[in-house]
């Protein structure tokens, strides 16, 4: 084989698909994996343009300098192990890229160590699943901008493309920002994905369990929704899922699948980062927590026989309610994206990533799991105001929620009264209602903190911090001996 333009370490599904994608776009790829089966399976499909090796020396010998090596291995220790294995053979100026779902802090640590030795490092998000990796993923690279220019042609070639109204094709890849920015943005992408999926799951629950609609009816509804505001990959695959029958039982396949979801990694990290940054992301967190609750399957089965609640019923106009549901989901979705972009903004300020929010929305339009035409509206919003502090303050997006709030309220009221859990919908509405409130009850909270901890407070009418000796009035809580909880 001639010299390879790029090397890929880790030939699992994602690594192999990316290798084939790169080869199809006219580059030569050398792959490396310890597993003979994985090497063989790349070679079988690689047509001589993507060739796998089991011996590191063979793999290294083929790489054009400066070497460009993409690691596609599970996040965590495996990445450190691969780096340690490659490190002795790397020279100054070589480029190492981590294309897995690494935590942005790990990426920053690794970049600092390698860059100190003159080795370039990029941490990049790659979204789109197996299919996207082969035919065009959305790619979110972050790190040293000079390193980015080395890999840019290949990434632009293999990424998904979006056809703009003028006919030009935009690649779904852009340089995201310094340090761990690429992995941070991918993490938030996944958090938003959790949110989108949870809204769909709750919608399914309300319509299926509440209104009694069948999988086939849901298929038709999602097919229709995929032509409107909600058009997106996740709505599209949900449509397909509802039409898929189980070969064994003849039932809709979705009905025989266990209701217990995974919740490790990026979704959880998004919530944790939001908490850490003090950026409100309640709906995304509610989605993560809903998966956690789903994992309590056995305990839930026990509880279902012990705890009672209302039995869901519906006696209204089904078609009208389905339309209401569509409007509600769109409103909640905007609130979720407002939170996701809020986390990005907080991180960009805190970590000096210098993120370009409109660009991020743009590269999410194709290839990735949350791809949707809706993302154009976010790009447009940031084009109108690059410093937009919250999507809800954009004239289009904010008004879209405002105009649909009646639907959102109606759905939540129905679910609340009928005992169908809608944590994400409720959380989205509470976020909207809190965000548009000039006055929140935190004044009482500050009074309480000042009362028990002398934490002081600020006033609405003048500058400075103040403290009140609340206990001095007659019926002080602390001195009240009538209190059931005495404090001797």
């Amino acid at each position, binding site marked *: 084989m001639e010299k390879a333009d790029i090397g890929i370490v880790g030939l699992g599904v994602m690594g192999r698909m990316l290798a084939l994608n790169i080869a199809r776009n006219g580059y030569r790829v050398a792959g490396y994996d310890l597993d003979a089966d994985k090497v063989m399976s790349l070679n079988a499909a690689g047509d001589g343009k993507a060739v796998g090796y089991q011996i590191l020396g063979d793999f290294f010998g083929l790489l054009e300098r400066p070497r460009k090596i993409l690691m596609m291995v599970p996040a965590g220790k495996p990445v450190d192990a691969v780096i340690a294995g490659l490190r002795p053979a790397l020279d100054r100026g070589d480029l190492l890229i981590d294309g897995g779902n690494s935590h942005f802090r790990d990426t920053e640590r690794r970049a600092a160590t390698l860059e100190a030795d003159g080795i370039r490092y990029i941490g990049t998000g790659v979204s789109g699943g197996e299919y996207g990796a082969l035919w065009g993923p959305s790619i979110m690279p972050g790190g040293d901008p000079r390193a980015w220019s080395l890999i840019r042609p290949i990434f632009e070639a293999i990424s998904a493309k979006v056809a703009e109204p003028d006919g030009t094709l935009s690649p779904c890849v852009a340089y995201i920002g310094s340090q761990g920015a690429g992995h941070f943005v991918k993490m938030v992408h996944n958090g938003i994905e959790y949110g989108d*999926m949870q809204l769909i799951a709750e919608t399914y629950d309300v319509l299926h369990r509440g209104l009694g609609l069948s999988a086939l009816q849901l298929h038709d509804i999602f097919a229709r929704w995929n032509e409107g505001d909600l058009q997106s990959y996740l709505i599209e695959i949900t449509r397909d899922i509802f039409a898929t029958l189980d070969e064994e039982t003849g039932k809709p396949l979705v009905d025989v699948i266990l209701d217990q979801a995974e919740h490790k990694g990026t979704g959880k990290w998004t919530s944790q980062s939001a*908490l850490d940054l003090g950026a409100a992301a309640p709906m995304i967190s509610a989605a993560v927590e809903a998966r956690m609750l789903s994992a309590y399957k056995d305990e839930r089965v026990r509880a279902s026989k012990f705890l009672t*609640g209302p039995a869901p019923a519906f006696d209204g106009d089904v078609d009208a309610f389905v339309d209401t549901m569509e409007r509600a989901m769109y409103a909640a979705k905007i609130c979720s994206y407002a939170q996701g972009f809020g986390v990005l903004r907080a991180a960009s300020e805190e970590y000096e990533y210098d993120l370009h929010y409109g660009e991020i929305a743009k590269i999410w339009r194709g290839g990735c799991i949350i791809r949707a035409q809706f993302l154009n509206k976010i790009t447009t919003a940031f084009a109108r105001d690059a410093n937009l502090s919250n999507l809800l303050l954009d004239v289009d997006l904010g008004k879209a929620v405002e105009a649909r709030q009646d639907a959102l309220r109606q759905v939540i009221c129905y679910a*609340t009264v009928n005992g169908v859990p809608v944590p994400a919908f409720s959380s989205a509405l509470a976020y909207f209602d*809190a*965000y548009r409130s000039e006055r929140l009850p935190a004044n009482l*909270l500050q009074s*309480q*903190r000042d009362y028990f901890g002398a934490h002081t407070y600020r006033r609405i009418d003048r500058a400075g911090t103040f403290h009140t000796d609340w206990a001095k009035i007659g019926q002080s809580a602390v001195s009240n001996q009538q209190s059931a909880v*005495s404090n001797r």
Partner: protein
Amino acid sequence: MTEKCDIGLIGLAVMGQNLVLNMSDHGFKVAVFNRTVSKVDDFINGSAAGRTIYGAHSIEELVGMLASPRRVMLLVKAGKPVDDFIEMLIPLLDPGDIIIDGGNSNYNDTIRRTKYVESKGLLYIGTGVSGGEEGARHGPSIMPGGSPAAWPHVKPIFQAVAAKVEDGSPCCDWVGENGAGHYVKMTHNGIEYGDMQLICEAYQLMKEGLGMSNEEMHQVFAEWNEGKLDSYLIEITRDILAFKDEDGNYVVDQILDTAGQKGTGKWTGISALDMGIPLTLIVEAVFARCLSALIDERKAAEKVLSGPMATFDGDKAAFVRDLHDALYASKIMSYTQGYMLLRAAAEEYDWHLNYGGIALMWRGGCIIRSVFLGKIKEAFDKHPDLTNLLLDDYFKAEVEAAQAAWRRVIAKAVELGIPVPAMSSALAFFDGYRRGRLPQNLLQAQRDYFGAHTYERVDKPRGEFFHTDWIGSGAAATASTYTA
């Protein structure tokens, strides 16, 4: 000073001074030191005058004043100051001596420090102390964890100064190994965030939704404090709502509605996510504080985003009764979640937590003290292995009795446009927990569709994983070029 001191305390801020005064009230002899040494003399000549409190002007002097095994308690700022004092103390102490950290340290630091201090032949305690300044003075809730061998040596002091419940039981008992005490204190603070947020939501519903005056709300909280909600936070809310300044204005109305969320509340949420525990209410409470901090943005948003037209036109007294039940049921959910977290942490860190004992520690002295915690104590007394509070007969009956009102309150808040994130997340948790079947089967189908993540089936044994070629089975979502 004829005999040596029972304990030494470093850090004479208000909490430290009050705790020392409390110890001397109970007959203990206390040696004190502060980095700014003038504070020592001010204290000794001030409020400590005539008491069994003795000043030291150096750490060496302090250590020399202590009976063996020496007990040195730090009440300094969390973080580096704690590590600094530990380093200074280690060379001065003998095997078996005890260093106690009484600040709000992160439990991970306490785990690390316990190991480190023990490696030097000493014993370590990291303890939560809750109750604010007044609590420290007259009886805090104390939650010690660390080296088990240290506990018998501090137990008499800690249990003497701690708050007591009606039957005289102290609000202090051994929590568990290494970081367990600080973990339980952190969870206490998370629950405190939740309780405060619930009260805020009830307040806003009454104020904005029903248009009630401070005086009317004061009456409501006074009444609530006589029943199931009887607790310190309801009690101080009652007082706050009646409090007027010299000009006759209600102080609560003058206070800016923006709250901080640094530290323990946030740590509780982050830890819960790590453990896989749906701590939904507390996380909403933390985020509610984040939103309150965006005061300028909210002002801008209020101008462009309008809410619903609905106004309240029902029976106010009936709604306030519903609100009581909603607050109570939500509170049960929050504590249920908090206890789920403690259970998960105990497994993760191999702590042997006494859940009933923790409820007793929180029963008095601390910020979340309440009659309600007595009920939790009873539930664990009945069933020490209780996996979840909602599986206890008492709490089941209470929630079921409250749930109709709870649902009415949330529906009304949703209709009126008043945010109730904590109450609604609590209800969603209840409705999810009591469901044998949740919609996550669809989610698993989606994950298998786009990522071949596989799924399990309801009609096959667990641990058997299936994958479907969804794309081959129907109209596939397969474009690689998209239209903008």
